[in-house]
């Protein structure tokens, strides 16, 4: 059996889930023995090629049109899509802004912040992506595997990767199942 090809990307998250992935320490050698890591935000190659991958991993919620593109592209290119971390699974910390309107959030971020002077201005360049309500990954594309946690424990991530590498869909339970 050829090594399964794996690709990862991040959206509206803090990159903590990828840090937790690196936290598997020397076991990363085992993972690389088992899988073919094609692209990720922490490797030179950022996007999977057109031929696609077996497993796509996404961190973060979806809070603008750019994230939507990332999610849709990853879904199109992967056989199995993994939502990694609370933001991808539930919306997480970014989703807390859903309790306010987008205008309120932007005003707070670009104008009302304590460190902003009178020149504060909400960016309006037409080339920028458009902010949306923050959504969990499953609200935008179908998801196959949910790995909750803020961030998921390194052990849980290693368990998920090793199960996927061996051709099984991981079933998270007991100490691997933690929402935070």
């Amino acid at each position: 059996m050829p090594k399964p090809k794996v690709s990862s990307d991040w959206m509206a998250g803090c990159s903590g889930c990828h840090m937790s992935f690196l936290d598997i320490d020397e076991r990363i050698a085992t993972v690389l023995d088992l899988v073919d890591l094609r692209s990720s935000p922490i490797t030179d190659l950022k996007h999977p090629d057109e031929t696609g991958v077996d497993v796509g991993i996404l961190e973060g919620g979806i809070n603008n049109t750019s994230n939507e593109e990332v999610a849709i592209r990853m879904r199109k290119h992967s056989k199995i899509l993994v939502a990694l971390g609370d933001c991808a699974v539930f919306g997480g910390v970014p989703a807390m802004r859903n309790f306010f309107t987008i205008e309120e959030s932007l005003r707070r971020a670009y104008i009302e912040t304590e460190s902003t002077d009178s020149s504060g201005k909400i960016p309006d360049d037409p080339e920028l992506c458009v902010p949306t309500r923050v959504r969990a990954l499953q609200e935008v594309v179908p998801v196959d595997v949910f790995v909750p946690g803020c961030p998921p424990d390194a052990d849980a991530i290693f368990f998920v990767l090793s199960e996927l590498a061996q051709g099984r869909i991981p079933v998270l339970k007991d100490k691997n199942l933690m929402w935070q």
Partner: protein
Amino acid sequence: MTKLTINNKPVEVAEGTTVLNAARSAGIEIPTLCEHPHLTPYGGCRLCLVDVEGARTLQPSCTLPVTEGMVVKTDTDKVLAARKFVLTLIFSERNHFCPFCQVSGGDCELQNAAYHEGMTHWPLQPNWQPFPVDASHPYIVMENNRCILCRRCVRACGELVGNFTLGFEERGARSLLVADLGVPLGSSSCISCGSCVQVCPTGAMLDRWSAYRGRETQVEKTQTVCAGCSVGCGIDVLVRDNNLVRIEGNWGAVLNEGVICKVGRFEPLAEERNRLLTPLVRKDGKLKAATWEEAFDTIQAKFSPLVGKKNDGVAAVVSTGLPLESVYAFKKLFADYFQSDMVTSTEEGDYTSSASAFAQGSGKPFEGTRKDLQNADLALVFGIDLVKEHEVVGFFIKRNIPNGAKLVVIDPAVNSLDILAEVALKTGKTVETNLVQGIIAAVINAGAARTAASGVSESEIKSSISNAGCSPAELDKVASLIKSAERPVFVYGKGISEDTLKKLIHLAEITNSKIIGTKGGANSLASSQFGLESRIKLNGHQAVYAAFGSEEPSQHIIQQLEKAPFLVVQSAYGSALTARADVVLPSFTWLEQDGTYVNFEGNIQKAAKSLIAPEGTKSDLEIFVALGAKFDQKMDSDWMKQLTGKVAPVVIQG
């Protein structure tokens, strides 16, 4: 008995048992959220759904009574799917994003239930409707966004405490937990007992002092007894790295069955007084830090010539909140060795002296126990506000009122229970003997006396009623309430005169009522048994020794003691008196020392220390033993003989 099968297992339980409890008795686990063993089943969350053969839909097992031959399944695919669906609905109703919540990671029953069902996510997203957060209360934060509408808090507030502060407004998804009629919790009728926080399955009712300080898995739990007052409730003290995290009512405690009041739950956490950490000795007019040896030597030098002097020797005052062993050592040192005529407690016998005198006069205990209180269908409360002190006794009375129990409050002052009373008698300055005599007359007049009350003439009855100080109609109402009650209880507090108490006991006798004195501090009864009941009055005493423990000295005591020529204060916290003292001895708080406490119903209870005291302080007993050694006195712990040596108002046991 009813026979049924659950998961093909034959089960036999008493008639009327719920399917949930039947399953539990057979060792079959059914997950629950709104259900609580100490509250009436409500059937609100639907997590406990089970499959009952012949039933049209899944049934909530917490409210469903067993029937003969019932066939129940708790683990079918349909049930498991329903559980996940129920949890999904609850999660998507409000803000249940775990990373922000202090109960996440083991303390949240909702999260634990989802983990138990192996849920990695929930398929429905919330509608992002924000709900109000009420942080107006000094101890409790009401976070409606995390509420799952299980109404445990509402039921605890009503059923366990009888306070009925919490309730819901609106319906369905808009349901909102509110205090009273929607006022901020901090200005509501809440009495801060915290029972709502203790039963909340999620983080919706938050104890602001303990939130984020540590989870159940990270703390050490000590089962002990509250020394806040004479009730002596069972408590669990949660400590992490010697930091007080939280105090909870012990559900297993026979006395209070999980409920406690703010004195035990919140006040030790909100402590703001200055902790005393080193002995202080006054030198050249100023209090300076000293060693224990210096402090003891100073006391010894001053006290040595005063041994055996009665009215110009050492006056001594002890807090009734100290462990019995310490109170006993105090009594031995100052009453037996120094032979001072003024050795007393901070209570000065206010709660106990009349009852103690009566018990010794009659030669037998006359008071009932908390069981009589809990079973009472009529409570007559004399001169004590059970919302301001001895609150748990108040809970026992208040929670019976919705079940038909009646309340009569006899208090010259405004009483917090007036509003719940059928009759609130307001006369004179204290509970007058005449008033009780008037009630006795009205009872005889109404034919409510259960034992023959002979020898009372018509004219005596008439004059008693007219001298009572309140309207005959009110007395008649009280008499008719007593007449129709089966298990009346009289509760009296402090300041009752011996004459009035005698009348009250007579009234209890002729009406077959029980009578209970609340007593005062945690060792009020023991202090009374040790004879520490005289009034504080300094006349010629050359020195004063005051041991306060965790008690804050009252204005009255400060006024009495501050004029002492030489003042020694033993206390855990700084006060106006430690500032005035000549020697200050830093002692342990009640949470830091083991000890024995005799509660209001005469139960001898052991308290275990839950915190390690700061270095440089000593336990009250250690201080008395060390001080005794300075005078070659051994502080034997033979207190049992003294405690039970004379007749007490209640049977002392345990």
